[in-house]
């Protein structure tokens, strides 16, 4: 086995295995929500928008950089783990071979961005925007180059006492009640999912709020837009359940009532939706009327809470979960059209309570679920 193959086997393949949920989520957002016949024109429009607006290009660069940081953090974390410390023996290899192997590793784990960026650059050259196309190439090359140099530095100067990735942890500077455990996890371990989710949710909600689809104001359109934005949170909710099962096992031994536990999750999702509350607040009263605004917190929190509670029914399986998510969206779509908001909210809350009380203490993770 060559050194390149060794790095890919120990770091590259586990990277894709551990982030399968993230990739599925991005794949669904990028390719699953658009009809097949419109897929190419949709992506071409997106690419022209990037190439034609430096502001949009910078936002996209921010997302690419975030993904690059995810790759970087994962690699350094893996190198710091005791089972992988045998990789430090590669520091004895010629520097050129070491750099080459690490650069290939970086290209491998950064491949999803590279593939998309390559198409963007080609479209840029073809459509006569070489400056933007060159920027795309230079930016992603720089991300790969700097990451590789830092991996190389880490391999050649191992310091087991220095927990680099921990130094970058986000920590609230005050006592954390249980709901903030999840928010801390979101801001530490789920940055990419968090930013991508909020980015897509914001685009959808702002488009619906600004009447991109119909000229006259209709509260149902806002609700539908919010529902679509909430659906984009489904992977975030799934990751929260995985976090709960993998690192918060001790919480089941704490003497909280079942209702209190359910309430804690309601608080968590209310906090997760803070950016949406701000968006809606800024649209009030011109683009969002009083009669519609006060349903939204109950609707948003209730919908994510139901997603969460559905996941207590074993097994913790993404495929089955996504079927539920799309089924719920279909039912809600019709209920929103009939404008029965109170019925929707009562249904969401009662169903989430039912699933929580029925399955919370019966759930047990089995091998291979997490």
């Amino acid at each position: 086995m060559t050194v390149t193959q060794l790095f890919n086997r120990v770091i590259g393949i586990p990277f894709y295995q551990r982030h399968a949920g993230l990739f599925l989520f991005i794949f669904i957002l990028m390719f699953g929500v658009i009809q097949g016949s419109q897929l190419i024109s949709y992506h071409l429009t997106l690419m022209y928008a990037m190439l034609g607006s430096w502001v949009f290009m910078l936002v996209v660069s921010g997302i690419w950089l975030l993904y690059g940081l995810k790759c970087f953090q994962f690699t350094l974390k893996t190198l710091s783990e005791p089972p992988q410390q045998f990789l430090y023996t590669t520091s004895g290899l010629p520097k050129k071979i070491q750099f080459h192997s690490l650069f290939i590793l970086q290209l491998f784990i950064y491949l999803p961005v590279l593939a998309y960026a390559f198409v963007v650059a080609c479209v840029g050259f073809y459509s006569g925007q070489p400056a933007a196309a060159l920027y795309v190439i230079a930016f992603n090359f720089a991300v790969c180059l700097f990451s590789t140099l830092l991996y190389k530095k880490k391999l050649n100067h191992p310091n087991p006492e220095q927990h680099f990735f921990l130094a970058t942890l986000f920590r609230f500077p005050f006592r954390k009640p249980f709901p903030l455990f999840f928010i801390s996890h979101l801001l530490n371990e789920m940055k990419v999912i968090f930013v991508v989710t909020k980015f897509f949710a914001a685009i959808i909600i702002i488009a619906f709020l600004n009447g991109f689809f119909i000229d006259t104001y209709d509260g149902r359109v806002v609700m539908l837009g919010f529902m679509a934005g909430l659906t984009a949170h489904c992977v975030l909710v799934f990751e929260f359940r995985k976090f709960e099962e993998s690192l918060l096992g001790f919480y089941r031994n704490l003497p909280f009532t079942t209702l209190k536990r359910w309430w804690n999750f309601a608080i968590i999702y209310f906090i997760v939706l803070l950016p949406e509350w701000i968006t809606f607040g800024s649209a009030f009263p011109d683009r969002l009327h009083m009669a519609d605004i006060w349903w939204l917190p109950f609707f948003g929190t209730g919908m994510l809470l139901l997603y969460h509670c559905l996941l207590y029914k074993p097994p913790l399986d993404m495929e089955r979960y996504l079927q539920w998510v799309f089924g719920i969206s279909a039912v809600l779509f019709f209920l929103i059209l009939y404008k029965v908001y109170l019925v929707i909210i009562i249904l969401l809350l009662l169903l989430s309570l039912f699933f929580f009380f029925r399955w919370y203490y019966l759930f047990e993770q089995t091998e291979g679920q997490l």
Partner: protein
Amino acid sequence: MVQLQDLKKSYGSHVVVDVPAFNLEQKIYWLKGINGSGKTTLMKLIAGLLPFEGDVIIDDSISIKKNRSDYLRLVNYAEAEPLYPPFLSGKDLLQLYIKSKKATPDQAQELIAALQVGSFIENATGTYSSGMLKKISLLLAFIGQPKLILLDEPLVTIDDKTVPVINRIIRDYHEQKGVTFLLTSHQLFESTAFPITHQLEMKDQTIKILS
């Protein structure tokens, strides 16, 4: 007294624990058994971490199935290999336990001093060694007013200086507060450390009394 009633845990057709009836008196029990015999699973069932058939009743009337939060206030558990989110500090965890187990800050301070965790309790647990994590999990297991404490391999990764401290805490909790202990350990407990009343063995999916 803790009563295990028709306690059964299976994975498909494979039975892991099957205890028709067993009572734990107000004593210190050492649960032995070979690897994979079901010791840890039994502890997790009693601690409320895993679903099971049957019931566990404490003080004659408080059932894990019917009065779960009251039951969990009386039963504390420390895992053999504790896992916590790396961004939380020991203090974050301690504060959650103090609040939920209705402990006093004084009790927490005494345990912090005894287990000598004050120097790192404010740091993120991701920076801890396995011994430091173990100390934090033991500290959390002693918090509140439990009547039953389950300690899975309490001495593993603990330094020699701290072992007598843990032994003393176990003895004090048992003698002064009447706490029942169920301990598992592959290491020998020092005979002078605390009075091991019964030695039990997990064998053939059930509990057998050795002495």
